[in-house]
């Protein structure tokens, strides 16, 4: 399992290599990418803020939960923070498994949960202003 919160650019080839194993026939990779518009506004760039130690813990716990729920082989979760331009990758999730259905299901589940629970925030800087985007309120469990 590989967990990373970093200001460096994220590389999908590296994520594939982190999870690839000789006994896994399928790898599914998700990239969350900075879009050029949101809510009808033209986005100039994003700033990601995070509580890095806690974000890593939440990412690790969710990756462990995914590995318990599905017969997958390995998981990598990488989140970029700081200044991101349009087209850059903010989130990389890679899952390897013997069977492709599990890799798709586990990767999709992980992305949904990360967006609900990882203590990471984005500020959109658009033409004419900026705003912290507030999405999901995490709950204790």
């Amino acid at each position: 399992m590989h967990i990373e919160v970093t200001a460096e650019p994220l590389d999908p080839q590296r994520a594939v290599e982190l999870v690839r194993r000789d006994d896994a026939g399928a790898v599914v990779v998700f990239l969350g990418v900075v879009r050029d518009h949101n809510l009808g506004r033209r986005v100039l760039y994003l700033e990601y803020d995070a509580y890095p130690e806690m974000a890593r813990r939440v990412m690790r716990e969710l990756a462990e939960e995914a590995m318990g729920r599905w017969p997958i082989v390995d998981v990598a979760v990488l989140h970029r923070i700081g200044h991101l331009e349009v087209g850059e990758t903010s989130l990389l999730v890679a899952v390897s498994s013997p069977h492709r259905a599990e890799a798709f299901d586990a990767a999709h589940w992980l992305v949904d949960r990360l967006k609900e629970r990882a203590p990471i925030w984005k500020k959109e800087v658009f033409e004419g202003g900026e705003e912290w985007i507030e999405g999901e309120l995490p709950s204790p469990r």
Partner: protein
Amino acid sequence: MKARVLLFARLKDLAGVSEAEVEIGEGLTAADVFRLLQGLYPGLASYDAPLAYAVNARYVSPEHPVRDGDEVAFIPPVSGGGTCTSR
């Protein structure tokens, strides 16, 4: 008794600080510490969105007791990931 408090995203902008050491009384909850911070940093008084709480990097309920030396984080609704929506 002291706690280290962490503020993120909009809370950080409203308070003008991202972390602080604060003196706390006995028996305060996580929500009590936020009310205390609203007194110390008046910008926080205008925060009206939902709020989650973490003590020592774990999510807790608002009623969770804060102890000496704890790290208390105030967590606005999160928005990590890309800019895709779920559907």
